[in-house]
Protein backbone atom coordinates (compact mmCIF):
# COMPACT_ATOMS: atom_id res chain seq x y z
CA UNK A 1 0.00 0.00 0.00
CA UNK A 2 2.73 2.49 0.99
CA UNK A 3 6.32 2.22 -0.23
CA UNK A 4 8.87 4.58 1.27
CA UNK A 5 12.39 4.45 -0.15
CA UNK A 6 15.33 6.36 1.32
CA UNK A 7 13.01 9.24 2.27
CA UNK A 8 15.00 12.20 3.51
CA UNK A 9 13.59 15.54 4.56
CA UNK A 10 15.77 18.36 5.78
CA UNK A 11 14.64 21.41 7.75
CA UNK A 12 17.43 23.96 8.06
CA UNK A 13 20.43 21.67 8.53
CA UNK A 14 18.64 18.89 10.37
CA UNK A 15 17.50 15.66 8.76
CA UNK A 16 13.99 15.34 10.15
CA UNK A 17 13.56 12.20 8.06
CA UNK A 18 16.85 10.43 7.60
CA UNK A 19 16.93 7.85 4.78
CA UNK A 20 13.77 6.07 5.84
CA UNK A 21 12.82 2.91 3.99
CA UNK A 22 9.54 1.32 4.92
CA UNK A 23 6.91 -0.84 3.31
CA UNK A 24 3.39 -0.76 4.67
CA UNK A 25 1.09 -3.48 3.43
CA UNK A 26 -2.65 -3.39 3.02
CA UNK A 27 -4.22 -4.34 6.35
CA UNK A 28 -1.27 -3.25 8.46
CA UNK A 29 -2.36 -1.60 11.71
CA UNK A 30 0.61 0.40 12.87
CA UNK A 31 1.44 2.18 16.10
CA UNK A 32 3.97 4.84 15.12
CA UNK A 33 5.85 5.89 18.22
CA UNK A 34 8.81 7.94 19.29
CA UNK A 35 9.78 10.97 21.35
CA UNK A 36 8.92 14.54 20.32
CA UNK A 37 10.94 15.56 17.26
CA UNK A 38 11.45 11.95 16.17
CA UNK A 39 9.94 12.67 12.73
CA UNK A 40 6.56 10.93 13.14
CA UNK A 41 4.42 13.88 12.07
CA UNK A 42 6.83 14.73 9.24
CA UNK A 43 6.55 11.16 7.97
CA UNK A 44 2.76 11.33 8.10
CA UNK A 45 2.70 14.70 6.35
CA UNK A 46 5.00 13.33 3.67
CA UNK A 47 2.61 10.44 3.06
CA UNK A 48 -0.20 13.01 2.78
CA UNK A 49 1.78 15.02 0.21
CA UNK A 50 2.41 18.15 2.27
CA UNK A 51 6.20 17.97 2.03
CA UNK A 52 8.56 17.68 -0.91
CA UNK A 53 11.32 15.22 -0.06
CA UNK A 54 14.95 16.23 -0.41
CA UNK A 55 15.81 12.69 -1.36
CA UNK A 56 14.05 9.37 -1.85
CA UNK A 57 10.43 8.70 -2.72
CA UNK A 58 7.04 7.83 -1.28
CA UNK A 59 4.32 5.96 -3.15
CA UNK A 60 0.79 5.28 -1.96
CA UNK A 61 -0.84 2.59 -4.10
CA UNK A 62 1.77 3.53 -6.70
CA UNK A 63 0.91 7.24 -6.63
CA UNK A 64 3.27 10.05 -5.70
CA UNK A 65 1.50 12.00 -2.90
CA UNK A 66 2.81 15.34 -4.21
CA UNK A 67 2.18 14.87 -7.93
CA UNK A 68 -0.99 12.78 -7.61
CA UNK A 69 -2.34 14.16 -4.35
CA UNK A 70 -6.00 13.75 -5.33
CA UNK A 71 -5.52 10.05 -6.11
CA UNK A 72 -3.75 9.50 -2.78
CA UNK A 73 -6.18 11.54 -0.69
CA UNK A 74 -9.21 9.83 -2.23
CA UNK A 75 -8.07 6.72 -0.38
CA UNK A 76 -7.01 8.43 2.82
CA UNK A 77 -8.60 9.70 6.03
CA UNK A 78 -6.63 11.87 8.38
CA UNK A 79 -7.23 13.16 11.89
CA UNK A 80 -4.73 15.79 13.08
CA UNK A 81 -3.34 15.97 16.59
CA UNK A 82 -5.32 19.09 17.50
CA UNK A 83 -8.62 20.05 15.84
CA UNK A 84 -7.90 23.17 13.75
CA UNK A 85 -9.97 26.33 14.37
CA UNK A 86 -12.01 25.97 11.17
CA UNK A 87 -14.45 28.86 10.81
CA UNK A 88 -16.86 27.01 8.53
CA UNK A 89 -20.12 25.91 10.11
CA UNK A 90 -20.67 22.17 10.52
CA UNK A 91 -23.05 22.28 7.57
CA UNK A 92 -20.41 23.95 5.39
CA UNK A 93 -17.66 21.64 6.59
CA UNK A 94 -19.83 18.62 5.76
CA UNK A 95 -20.54 20.12 2.33
CA UNK A 96 -16.79 20.54 1.72
CA UNK A 97 -16.04 16.99 2.81
CA UNK A 98 -18.98 15.32 1.12
CA UNK A 99 -18.57 17.05 -2.24
CA UNK A 100 -14.80 16.66 -2.39
CA UNK A 101 -14.75 13.09 -1.13
CA UNK A 102 -17.98 11.88 -2.76
CA UNK A 103 -19.76 10.82 0.42
CA UNK A 104 -23.07 12.01 1.83
CA UNK A 105 -23.52 14.38 4.78
CA UNK A 106 -25.91 11.74 6.12
CA UNK A 107 -23.10 9.22 6.45
CA UNK A 108 -21.07 11.73 8.47
CA UNK A 109 -24.05 12.37 10.73
CA UNK A 110 -24.50 8.64 11.22
CA UNK A 111 -20.88 8.17 12.23
CA UNK A 112 -21.17 11.17 14.55
CA UNK A 113 -24.20 9.72 16.28
CA UNK A 114 -22.26 6.47 16.77
CA UNK A 115 -19.73 8.65 18.61
CA UNK A 116 -22.62 10.04 20.71
CA UNK A 117 -22.44 13.40 18.93
CA UNK A 118 -25.73 14.86 17.78
CA UNK A 119 -24.71 17.21 14.98
CA UNK A 120 -28.24 18.25 14.07
CA UNK A 121 -28.33 20.69 16.99
CA UNK A 122 -25.13 22.43 15.88
CA UNK A 123 -25.34 22.52 12.09
CA UNK A 124 -25.16 26.32 11.83
CA UNK A 125 -22.47 26.65 14.48
CA UNK A 126 -18.89 27.36 13.37
CA UNK A 127 -16.68 24.32 13.92
CA UNK A 128 -14.21 26.22 16.12
CA UNK A 129 -16.97 27.07 18.60
CA UNK A 130 -17.59 23.42 19.50
CA UNK A 131 -16.00 22.01 22.62
CA UNK A 132 -12.65 20.19 22.26
CA UNK A 133 -14.27 16.79 22.60
CA UNK A 134 -17.04 17.58 20.11
CA UNK A 135 -14.53 18.82 17.55
CA UNK A 136 -12.50 15.65 17.85
CA UNK A 137 -15.62 13.49 17.55
CA UNK A 138 -16.62 15.39 14.42
CA UNK A 139 -13.21 14.81 12.85
CA UNK A 140 -13.41 11.13 13.74
CA UNK A 141 -16.91 10.92 12.23
CA UNK A 142 -15.66 12.49 9.00
CA UNK A 143 -12.64 10.17 8.87
CA UNK A 144 -14.75 7.06 9.39
CA UNK A 145 -17.50 8.15 6.98
CA UNK A 146 -14.96 8.32 4.15
CA UNK A 147 -14.49 4.53 4.39
CA UNK A 148 -10.88 4.97 3.32
CA UNK A 149 -8.30 2.29 2.60
CA UNK A 150 -5.74 4.25 4.61
CA UNK A 151 -6.48 5.94 7.94
CA UNK A 152 -3.92 8.14 9.63
CA UNK A 153 -4.62 9.22 13.17
CA UNK A 154 -2.24 11.64 14.87
CA UNK A 155 -2.97 11.29 18.61
CA UNK A 156 -6.70 11.03 17.85
CA UNK A 157 -7.93 10.63 21.40
CA UNK A 158 -6.07 13.54 23.00
CA UNK A 159 -9.27 15.54 23.52
CA UNK A 160 -11.62 12.68 24.32
CA UNK A 161 -12.91 11.60 27.71
CA UNK A 162 -12.46 7.92 28.68
CA UNK A 163 -15.96 6.95 27.56
CA UNK A 164 -15.53 8.57 24.14
CA UNK A 165 -12.12 6.90 23.79
CA UNK A 166 -13.68 3.49 24.40
CA UNK A 167 -16.37 4.23 21.85
CA UNK A 168 -13.77 5.31 19.31
CA UNK A 169 -11.67 2.18 19.76
CA UNK A 170 -14.80 0.04 19.54
CA UNK A 171 -15.65 1.67 16.21
CA UNK A 172 -12.13 1.09 14.95
CA UNK A 173 -12.46 -2.61 15.67
CA UNK A 174 -15.31 -2.67 13.16
CA UNK A 175 -13.00 -1.46 10.41
CA UNK A 176 -12.42 -4.02 7.63
CA UNK A 177 -9.22 -6.04 7.88
CA UNK A 178 -8.08 -4.70 4.54
CA UNK A 179 -7.93 -1.11 5.84
CA UNK A 180 -4.46 0.16 6.68
CA UNK A 181 -4.25 2.25 9.82
CA UNK A 182 -1.43 4.35 11.23
CA UNK A 183 -1.77 5.61 14.80
CA UNK A 184 0.76 8.23 15.80
CA UNK A 185 0.76 7.83 19.54
CA UNK A 186 2.61 8.16 22.81
CA UNK A 187 0.15 5.85 24.57
CA UNK A 188 0.81 2.40 23.17
CA UNK A 189 -1.34 0.74 25.83
CA UNK A 190 -4.44 2.33 24.32
CA UNK A 191 -3.92 1.15 20.77
CA UNK A 192 -2.11 -2.09 21.56
CA UNK A 193 -5.17 -4.28 21.00
CA UNK A 194 -5.75 -2.63 17.64
CA UNK A 195 -2.31 -2.91 16.07
CA UNK A 196 -0.35 -5.67 14.43
CA UNK A 197 2.85 -3.68 13.97
CA UNK A 198 4.85 -1.24 16.07
CA UNK A 199 7.27 1.21 14.52
CA UNK A 200 9.55 3.24 16.78
CA UNK A 201 11.26 6.35 15.40
CA UNK A 202 13.95 8.62 16.79
CA UNK A 203 16.00 11.43 15.22
CA UNK A 204 14.37 10.90 11.86
CA UNK A 205 15.17 7.20 11.63
CA UNK A 206 13.19 4.01 12.13
CA UNK A 207 14.79 2.45 15.20
CA UNK A 208 12.52 -0.52 15.63
CA UNK A 209 9.94 -2.19 13.41
CA UNK A 210 8.19 -5.04 15.14
CA UNK A 211 5.28 -7.21 14.03
CA UNK A 212 2.94 -8.22 16.82
Amino acid sequence: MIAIKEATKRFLDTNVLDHITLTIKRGDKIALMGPNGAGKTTLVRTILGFYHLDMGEVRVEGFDPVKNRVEVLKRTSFIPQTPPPIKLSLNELMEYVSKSSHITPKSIMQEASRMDLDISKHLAKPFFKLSGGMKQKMLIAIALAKRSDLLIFDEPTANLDPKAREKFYALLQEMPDSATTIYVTHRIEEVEPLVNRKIYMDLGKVIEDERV
Partner: protein
Amino acid sequence: MRNLLLVAKLDIKESTRSKWFFVYLLVFGGLMALFFITGITDSVVMGFTGLSRLLLVYMQVTIVILPIFILITTVKSISGDRESAILEYMLSFPVALRDYYWGKMLGRFVIVFVPVMIALVIGVLWGLFKGGELPWKVLIVYSLFLFSLCALFLGIAFFISTIVKSHDVALGASFVVWILMLAFIDIALIGLMLANRWNDDFIIALALLNPLEVFRVGAISLFDPELTVMGPVAYFLLDTFGHKLFLFYAVFYPLVLGALFAFAGFWVFRKRDLL
Protein backbone atom coordinates in the same frame (compact mmCIF):
# COMPACT_ATOMS: atom_id res chain seq x y z
CA MET B 1 -13.78 22.97 -11.56
CA ARG B 2 -16.52 21.69 -9.25
CA ASN B 3 -14.16 21.79 -6.28
CA LEU B 4 -12.89 25.24 -7.30
CA LEU B 5 -16.43 26.60 -7.14
CA LEU B 6 -17.04 24.74 -3.88
CA VAL B 7 -13.97 26.34 -2.26
CA ALA B 8 -15.00 29.77 -3.62
CA LYS B 9 -18.55 29.41 -2.32
CA LEU B 10 -17.43 28.34 1.15
CA ASP B 11 -14.87 31.14 1.32
CA ILE B 12 -17.59 33.67 0.45
CA LYS B 13 -19.89 32.24 3.12
CA GLU B 14 -17.13 32.27 5.72
CA SER B 15 -16.06 35.82 4.83
CA THR B 16 -19.56 37.24 5.06
CA ARG B 17 -19.64 36.17 8.71
CA SER B 18 -16.27 37.66 9.57
CA LYS B 19 -15.66 40.90 11.40
CA TRP B 20 -13.33 42.29 8.74
CA PHE B 21 -16.10 42.01 6.15
CA PHE B 22 -18.47 43.89 8.43
CA VAL B 23 -15.90 46.68 8.84
CA TYR B 24 -15.28 46.64 5.07
CA LEU B 25 -19.01 47.13 4.38
CA LEU B 26 -19.18 49.81 7.03
CA VAL B 27 -16.24 51.74 5.56
CA PHE B 28 -17.46 51.76 1.96
CA GLY B 29 -21.14 52.16 2.86
CA GLY B 30 -20.14 54.89 5.34
CA LEU B 31 -18.01 56.57 2.71
CA MET B 32 -20.95 56.90 0.36
CA ALA B 33 -23.21 58.07 3.18
CA LEU B 34 -20.60 60.68 4.07
CA PHE B 35 -20.51 61.90 0.49
CA PHE B 36 -24.29 62.24 0.45
CA ILE B 37 -24.34 64.10 3.77
CA THR B 38 -21.54 66.48 2.80
CA GLY B 39 -23.41 67.26 -0.42
CA ILE B 40 -20.68 66.39 -2.89
CA THR B 41 -23.29 65.65 -5.55
CA ASP B 42 -24.78 69.11 -5.18
CA SER B 43 -21.64 70.87 -6.32
CA VAL B 44 -20.65 71.63 -9.91
CA VAL B 45 -16.92 72.00 -10.51
CA MET B 46 -15.12 72.84 -13.77
CA GLY B 47 -18.25 72.24 -15.82
CA PHE B 48 -18.75 68.69 -14.53
CA THR B 49 -21.94 67.61 -12.82
CA GLY B 50 -21.97 66.76 -9.14
CA LEU B 51 -22.20 63.06 -10.00
CA SER B 52 -18.84 63.01 -11.77
CA ARG B 53 -17.38 64.80 -8.82
CA LEU B 54 -18.81 62.20 -6.46
CA LEU B 55 -17.37 59.38 -8.55
CA LEU B 56 -13.98 61.06 -8.62
CA VAL B 57 -13.83 61.56 -4.87
CA TYR B 58 -15.01 57.98 -4.37
CA MET B 59 -12.28 56.66 -6.67
CA GLN B 60 -9.62 58.79 -5.00
CA VAL B 61 -10.51 57.51 -1.55
CA THR B 62 -10.94 53.95 -2.81
CA ILE B 63 -7.51 53.94 -4.43
CA VAL B 64 -5.99 54.63 -1.01
CA ILE B 65 -8.21 52.49 1.23
CA LEU B 66 -9.07 49.47 -0.91
CA PRO B 67 -5.52 48.15 -1.41
CA ILE B 68 -4.69 48.03 2.28
CA PHE B 69 -8.06 46.44 3.06
CA ILE B 70 -7.52 43.75 0.45
CA LEU B 71 -3.92 43.19 1.51
CA ILE B 72 -4.42 42.86 5.26
CA THR B 73 -7.53 40.72 5.00
CA THR B 74 -6.25 38.45 2.24
CA VAL B 75 -2.63 37.78 3.19
CA LYS B 76 -3.88 35.61 6.02
CA SER B 77 -5.96 33.40 3.74
CA ILE B 78 -3.11 30.95 3.11
CA SER B 79 -0.47 31.97 5.67
CA GLY B 80 -3.00 32.24 8.52
CA ASP B 81 -4.59 28.90 7.62
CA ARG B 82 -1.13 27.37 7.45
CA GLU B 83 -0.21 28.70 10.87
CA SER B 84 -3.43 27.56 12.53
CA ALA B 85 -3.24 24.08 10.89
CA ILE B 86 -6.51 24.68 9.02
CA LEU B 87 -4.64 24.24 5.74
CA GLU B 88 -3.29 20.88 6.89
CA TYR B 89 -6.78 19.59 7.53
CA MET B 90 -8.57 21.13 4.55
CA LEU B 91 -5.90 19.88 2.17
CA SER B 92 -6.09 16.35 3.54
CA PHE B 93 -9.19 15.94 1.34
CA PRO B 94 -8.96 15.12 -2.36
CA VAL B 95 -9.00 18.70 -3.62
CA ALA B 96 -6.40 19.68 -6.23
CA LEU B 97 -4.11 22.50 -5.17
CA ARG B 98 -5.22 24.35 -8.31
CA ASP B 99 -8.87 24.20 -7.21
CA TYR B 100 -8.07 25.22 -3.64
CA TYR B 101 -5.85 28.18 -4.55
CA TRP B 102 -7.95 29.63 -7.36
CA GLY B 103 -11.17 28.85 -5.51
CA LYS B 104 -9.95 30.86 -2.53
CA MET B 105 -8.97 33.67 -4.85
CA LEU B 106 -12.28 33.66 -6.71
CA GLY B 107 -14.22 33.72 -3.44
CA ARG B 108 -12.13 36.57 -2.11
CA PHE B 109 -12.47 38.50 -5.36
CA VAL B 110 -16.26 38.37 -5.16
CA ILE B 111 -16.21 39.43 -1.53
CA VAL B 112 -13.99 42.49 -2.09
CA PHE B 113 -15.29 43.56 -5.50
CA VAL B 114 -19.05 43.35 -4.98
CA PRO B 115 -19.30 45.81 -2.03
CA VAL B 116 -17.21 48.52 -3.76
CA MET B 117 -19.25 48.09 -6.94
CA ILE B 118 -22.49 48.28 -4.99
CA ALA B 119 -21.27 51.46 -3.27
CA LEU B 120 -20.41 52.89 -6.70
CA VAL B 121 -23.85 52.02 -8.10
CA ILE B 122 -25.58 53.50 -5.03
CA GLY B 123 -23.56 56.68 -5.55
CA VAL B 124 -24.62 56.85 -9.18
CA LEU B 125 -28.29 56.25 -8.32
CA TRP B 126 -28.12 58.96 -5.68
CA GLY B 127 -26.50 61.35 -8.16
CA LEU B 128 -29.22 60.61 -10.71
CA PHE B 129 -31.89 61.10 -8.06
CA LYS B 130 -30.39 64.50 -7.33
CA GLY B 131 -30.80 65.40 -10.98
CA GLY B 132 -27.38 64.68 -12.48
CA GLU B 133 -26.78 63.05 -15.86
CA LEU B 134 -25.49 59.52 -16.02
CA PRO B 135 -21.82 59.71 -17.10
CA TRP B 136 -21.65 56.34 -18.85
CA LYS B 137 -18.02 56.58 -19.87
CA VAL B 138 -16.85 57.49 -16.37
CA LEU B 139 -18.98 54.77 -14.81
CA ILE B 140 -17.70 52.05 -17.14
CA VAL B 141 -14.05 53.08 -16.83
CA TYR B 142 -14.32 53.38 -13.05
CA SER B 143 -15.91 49.93 -12.84
CA LEU B 144 -13.00 48.55 -14.86
CA PHE B 145 -10.56 50.37 -12.57
CA LEU B 146 -12.17 48.83 -9.51
CA PHE B 147 -12.09 45.38 -11.12
CA SER B 148 -8.46 45.82 -12.01
CA LEU B 149 -7.54 47.27 -8.60
CA CYS B 150 -9.15 44.33 -6.78
CA ALA B 151 -7.44 41.79 -9.07
CA LEU B 152 -4.05 43.45 -8.64
CA PHE B 153 -4.04 43.57 -4.86
CA LEU B 154 -5.58 40.12 -4.53
CA GLY B 155 -2.77 38.80 -6.73
CA ILE B 156 -0.15 40.53 -4.58
CA ALA B 157 -1.84 39.39 -1.35
CA PHE B 158 -2.01 35.75 -2.46
CA PHE B 159 1.62 35.89 -3.56
CA ILE B 160 2.71 37.22 -0.16
CA SER B 161 0.44 34.73 1.57
CA THR B 162 2.07 31.76 -0.14
CA ILE B 163 5.71 32.83 0.12
CA VAL B 164 5.75 33.67 3.82
CA LYS B 165 5.01 31.09 6.49
CA SER B 166 4.02 33.44 9.29
CA HIS B 167 0.91 35.57 9.39
CA ASP B 168 2.75 38.44 11.11
CA VAL B 169 5.42 38.60 8.41
CA ALA B 170 2.67 38.54 5.77
CA LEU B 171 0.96 41.49 7.43
CA GLY B 172 4.22 43.41 7.66
CA ALA B 173 4.98 42.73 3.98
CA SER B 174 1.53 44.01 2.95
CA PHE B 175 2.08 47.28 4.78
CA VAL B 176 5.44 47.72 3.09
CA VAL B 177 3.89 47.15 -0.36
CA TRP B 178 1.08 49.61 0.34
CA ILE B 179 3.28 52.32 1.82
CA LEU B 180 5.78 52.00 -1.06
CA MET B 181 3.08 52.38 -3.68
CA LEU B 182 1.50 55.32 -1.86
CA ALA B 183 4.88 56.99 -1.41
CA PHE B 184 5.68 56.88 -5.11
CA ILE B 185 2.72 58.84 -6.39
CA ASP B 186 3.08 62.17 -8.10
CA ILE B 187 2.38 64.34 -5.10
CA ALA B 188 4.68 62.43 -2.74
CA LEU B 189 8.21 61.09 -3.31
CA ILE B 190 8.08 61.56 -7.08
CA GLY B 191 7.44 65.26 -6.54
CA LEU B 192 10.45 65.37 -4.25
CA MET B 193 12.63 63.57 -6.81
CA LEU B 194 11.60 66.06 -9.46
CA ALA B 195 12.47 68.92 -7.17
CA ASN B 196 15.89 67.35 -6.63
CA ARG B 197 16.41 66.94 -10.39
CA TRP B 198 16.56 63.16 -10.54
CA ASN B 199 16.74 61.60 -13.99
CA ASP B 200 13.44 62.27 -15.81
CA ASP B 201 13.23 58.87 -17.49
CA PHE B 202 13.74 57.13 -14.18
CA ILE B 203 10.97 59.16 -12.58
CA ILE B 204 8.58 58.51 -15.48
CA ALA B 205 9.37 54.79 -15.40
CA LEU B 206 8.70 54.71 -11.65
CA ALA B 207 5.38 56.44 -12.15
CA LEU B 208 4.38 54.06 -14.94
CA LEU B 209 5.32 51.01 -12.89
CA ASN B 210 3.37 52.12 -9.84
CA PRO B 211 -0.21 50.85 -10.27
CA LEU B 212 -1.56 53.35 -7.72
CA GLU B 213 -0.11 56.27 -9.68
CA VAL B 214 -1.49 54.79 -12.90
CA PHE B 215 -4.97 54.41 -11.36
CA ARG B 216 -4.83 57.90 -9.95
CA VAL B 217 -3.85 59.52 -13.23
CA GLY B 218 -6.44 57.45 -15.11
CA ALA B 219 -9.21 58.30 -12.66
CA ILE B 220 -8.50 62.01 -12.47
CA SER B 221 -7.96 62.32 -16.22
CA LEU B 222 -11.63 61.52 -16.76
CA PHE B 223 -12.59 64.42 -14.53
CA ASP B 224 -9.80 66.88 -15.27
CA PRO B 225 -8.19 66.11 -18.66
CA GLU B 226 -5.62 68.86 -18.13
CA LEU B 227 -4.51 67.23 -14.87
CA THR B 228 -3.92 70.60 -13.32
CA VAL B 229 -4.35 69.16 -9.85
CA MET B 230 -1.99 66.24 -10.29
CA GLY B 231 1.52 67.41 -10.94
CA PRO B 232 3.96 67.37 -13.86
CA VAL B 233 4.62 63.62 -14.15
CA ALA B 234 0.94 62.83 -14.55
CA TYR B 235 0.66 65.55 -17.16
CA PHE B 236 3.67 64.18 -19.03
CA LEU B 237 2.29 60.62 -19.00
CA LEU B 238 -1.06 61.65 -20.37
CA ASP B 239 0.49 63.95 -22.94
CA THR B 240 2.85 61.23 -24.17
CA PHE B 241 0.45 58.30 -24.23
CA GLY B 242 -2.72 60.09 -25.23
CA HIS B 243 -5.90 59.79 -23.22
CA LYS B 244 -7.32 56.55 -24.70
CA LEU B 245 -4.07 54.61 -24.65
CA PHE B 246 -3.38 55.70 -21.10
CA LEU B 247 -6.82 54.58 -19.91
CA PHE B 248 -6.24 51.23 -21.60
CA TYR B 249 -2.86 50.97 -19.86
CA ALA B 250 -4.37 52.02 -16.51
CA VAL B 251 -6.89 49.16 -16.69
CA PHE B 252 -4.77 46.39 -18.20
CA TYR B 253 -1.31 46.94 -16.70
CA PRO B 254 -2.50 46.36 -13.09
CA LEU B 255 -4.65 43.45 -14.26
CA VAL B 256 -1.67 41.77 -15.93
CA LEU B 257 0.55 42.56 -12.92
CA GLY B 258 -2.05 41.08 -10.57
CA ALA B 259 -2.30 37.95 -12.73
CA LEU B 260 1.50 37.59 -12.74
CA PHE B 261 1.63 37.80 -8.94
CA ALA B 262 -1.28 35.37 -8.61
CA PHE B 263 0.39 32.83 -10.92
CA ALA B 264 3.73 33.28 -9.14
CA GLY B 265 1.91 32.63 -5.86
CA PHE B 266 0.32 29.50 -7.30
CA TRP B 267 3.69 28.28 -8.57
CA VAL B 268 5.17 28.69 -5.08
CA PHE B 269 2.11 27.02 -3.54
CA ARG B 270 2.62 23.97 -5.77
CA LYS B 271 6.37 23.75 -5.67
CA ARG B 272 7.12 24.37 -2.01
CA ASP B 273 6.16 22.52 1.16
CA LEU B 274 2.52 23.22 1.95
CA LEU B 275 3.11 23.40 5.70
